């Protein structure tokens, strides 16, 4: 115990700079697939830490001051658009809301696995989520056409809140990157896909029955492919209750299978 404290004190003394801030080392994965001279490698950068420094700030400083070719993605920089998912010290999360003060002085950054690499820390989540959306037909299959002269159908606010809860997924891909199955089996719907299915399943405006969903959900590319590691729920930046989503889908799929067997 005493030794550990001693060591960390030494660490702190060694790394605190003149203005009280740490000198950070970033180890960043580099590879530009379009450059024949580029090979995958780790590259180091050092940066003086600032108060409340986010990785949005840090990566932009590195690109603007040290390495203008560094590729990464940010848009909203307020954790709502889902652009900046990456592996930060081995854990998938949103870079824009990650404060350096919560990290070690050496910060390792990799692109999210399970997605096609565009370059360095930038991956093609857009194509993956588009394909998922098409596969689960991620729109309300409504009863009838919209009537512009009618007032809205009433809905219980409790239900609206529940749908909103599941609609909050920002498609950042962190859960996909954390998923043991999605990383090894390309067809797996993955947690974000399951959550999307559950969102439409619970929406009474959508006319699809459990039976319609059966083929999408009740296979090893769907909910029964999950091997139960549940890292997805741990890493989800929006704290979606993915455990509950899986339980809900399993229950619905089993119910539907039971009905099918009896008839």
């Amino acid at each position, binding site marked *: 115990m005493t030794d550990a404290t001693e060591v960390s004190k030494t660490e702190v003394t060694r790394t605190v700079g003149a203005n009280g801030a740490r000198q950070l080392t970033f180890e960043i994965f580099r590879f530009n697939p*379009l450059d024949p001279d580029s090979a995958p490698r780790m590259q180091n950068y050092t940066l003086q830490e600032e108060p409340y420094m986010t990785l949005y700030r840090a990566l932009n400083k590195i690109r603007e001051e040290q390495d*203008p070719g560094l590729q990464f993605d940010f848009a909203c920089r307020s954790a709502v658009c889902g652009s900046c998912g990456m592996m930060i010290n081995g854990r998938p999360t949103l870079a824009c809301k990650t404060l350096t003060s919560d990290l070690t002085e050496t910060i390792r950054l990799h692109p999210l696995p399970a997605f096609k690499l565009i370059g360095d820390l930038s991956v093609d989540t857009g194509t993956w989520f588009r394909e998922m959306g098409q596969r689960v037909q*991620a729109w309300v299959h409504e009863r009838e056409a919209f009537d512009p002269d009618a007032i809205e159908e009433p809905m219980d606010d409790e239900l609206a*809140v529940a749908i909103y809860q599941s609609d909050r997924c920002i498609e950042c891909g962190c859960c996909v990157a954390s998923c043991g199955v999605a990383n090894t089996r390309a067809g797996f719907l993955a947690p974000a896909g399951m959550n999307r299915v559950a969102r439409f399943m619970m929406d009474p405006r959508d006319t699809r029955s459990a039976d319609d969903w059966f083929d999408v959900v009740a296979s090893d590319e769907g909910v029964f492919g999950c091997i139960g590691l549940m890292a997805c729920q741990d890493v989800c930046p929006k704290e979606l209750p993915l455990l509950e989503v899986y339980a809900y889908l399993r229950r619905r799929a089993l119910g539907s299978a039971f009905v099918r067997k009896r008839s």
Partner: protein
Amino acid sequence: MERIETTDVLVIGGGLAGERCAMEAAALGQRVIILSLVPPRRSHSCAAQGGMQAALGNCFKAAGDSPDLHFLDTVRGSDWGADQEVARIFSDNAPVAVRELAHMGVPWTRLRPGSNQYHIKGETVIIEEPAEKAGLIMHRDFGGTAKWRACYAAAGTGHAALYAIDGEVLRLGIEVRDRAEALSLIHENGQCHGAVTRCLRSGRVGAILAKATVIATGGYGRIYGRYTTNATINEGTGAAIALATGVVPLGNMEAIQFHPTGLWPSGILVTEGCRGDGGYLLNRDMERFMVELEPAKQELASRDVVSRHMMGQIRDGKGVDHPGGPHLWLDLRHLGEEHLTTKLREVYEICRDFLGIKPWEELIPVRPTQHYSMGGIRVNKDGQAYGMRGLFAAGEAACWDMHGFNRLGGNSLAETLVAGRIVGGYVAEFAADHQVETETGLVLGFLQETEQTIADWLARDGDGPNVYQIRDAMGEIMMGKVGIFRQGDELAAAVSELSALHASLDTAVLRCRDPGPNPELSFALRLKGMLRLALVCAKGALAREESRGAHSRIDFPARDDRNWLKRTLVRWGAEEETPRFSYEPVGLIDLPPGDRGYGHSSHVDMDISLQQYNETVLAQQQEQGLLPTREPMGASLRPGAWHDAEARAGLAKT
């Protein structure tokens, strides 16, 4: 992928306005391609938080609401800078847009019948919500409105709307190219034929020819550098490529909105819904200064008014000290944990993630921050750009012009959907009547011009500035001298400093020459357009010698309806040295200019009658490039419909 492709409709921008427009055109049988800098669900529409205005009149505090009241609030909010016919089209159609989203699956917060507790003007009140309205769409209060009107899905309204609309785009099988941008418009003799594009995955340049081209690229907040709530992608490229044609004018580029509650110093938006739901603004002495300064509306005056009062507090030394500069406080503590983690959940998350605080325990540091671009590509009421057939614009990229010199909170989300639907219908009609008719030589000319620009950037050497230094300098000038309070000498200095920066672009040097998307080159290709937008904003502000809405001149404090009841237009062709300014009447006037009911300001009255003013509008706008509209000017205005709207709703007539 072919270097030159064709389609019926090309939509540049994959946010709510672009996608809603694409939906409408595709549903009417047109082949549509959407270009988007990011996957469409990451567009900045997703960041709209608090609400979408539509006069459904569902809850107790919304009783008696009507599109007439919404029209009045919007025109007053605009400080009479709006085109009133467009404001009318908008307010009449907003309820349909909200209900259509409900139909498409948006989980709007719904009305809970019976006793509900609210915080209104510093008091906790219990209101009995009517049982017969149970489960209908709920409203919250927003600034500058006579009734509770903002429809919302917690504090993620834009996200929910964008996901629903993008689902419809998926359903319709519309082709979306994400990580793609338009670098110039292909045009000749006042006709647009499509755009030169660049793929941000490969860096490849190509051309997409289209019968109709729509620009829906959002605002240009990033000309304010880091002093903006806008996403990094809001660089105004759509407005910039329209400006570069030299034919299409931009309207009211000096009309810039500052949101009262940007998080300080990161600039991240904290929704107006916080104040709508009862949040306070406090100064260093923990005084609710808005109560005394705006007794009628308090924290819920329009954004321009609240922002000015906040800067006034800071100027008077009542700001809270901070290494990045003084700020004020947003106090949500009395709203409680339950409310903040449900109806304002996104605000709670921002406080937790970026400040490490719980908003029911601690105060939030805020300061007015650039937020919205009222100006943009000047279009007629059908969305058709002035002076160029086949070019359309919708949403924040356009100056359609329902916002005039100040936009009301919640009106922009509603605008994207109302305009998207209307403009999309007209685009489909236009495309059905036209062919892609253009000479290959013309297209190759535009392509080669872009390729030459890229080659020049990559070839240039020397010790000139880098593009990020120029961007940062631009942001400092804009926030420092073209900000919330403006004055002639500072604006003149801004113009000369921005001109120097613009000139310095010729010596700016890239350090990255990597093949592929090259992030530094991508930014460099947008920077000239951004600087030109900054310049026309500063020059327009210098020329406008009055104060109207968000344009507040210390040296000309009165609104001047005698000389300035008009819209600034500016053209600046790529090859021209300097921009050309002109002016047009704001549009037909139905609600005569008067007091807004908040933000005590004086004004100089018109010296002609409304009838005299209105008689000149059509001819003067046509002279400025207004193209024929489907229906004659004024057909949708419904003059005088608002006359007894306030009395009917039990409001005092102003």
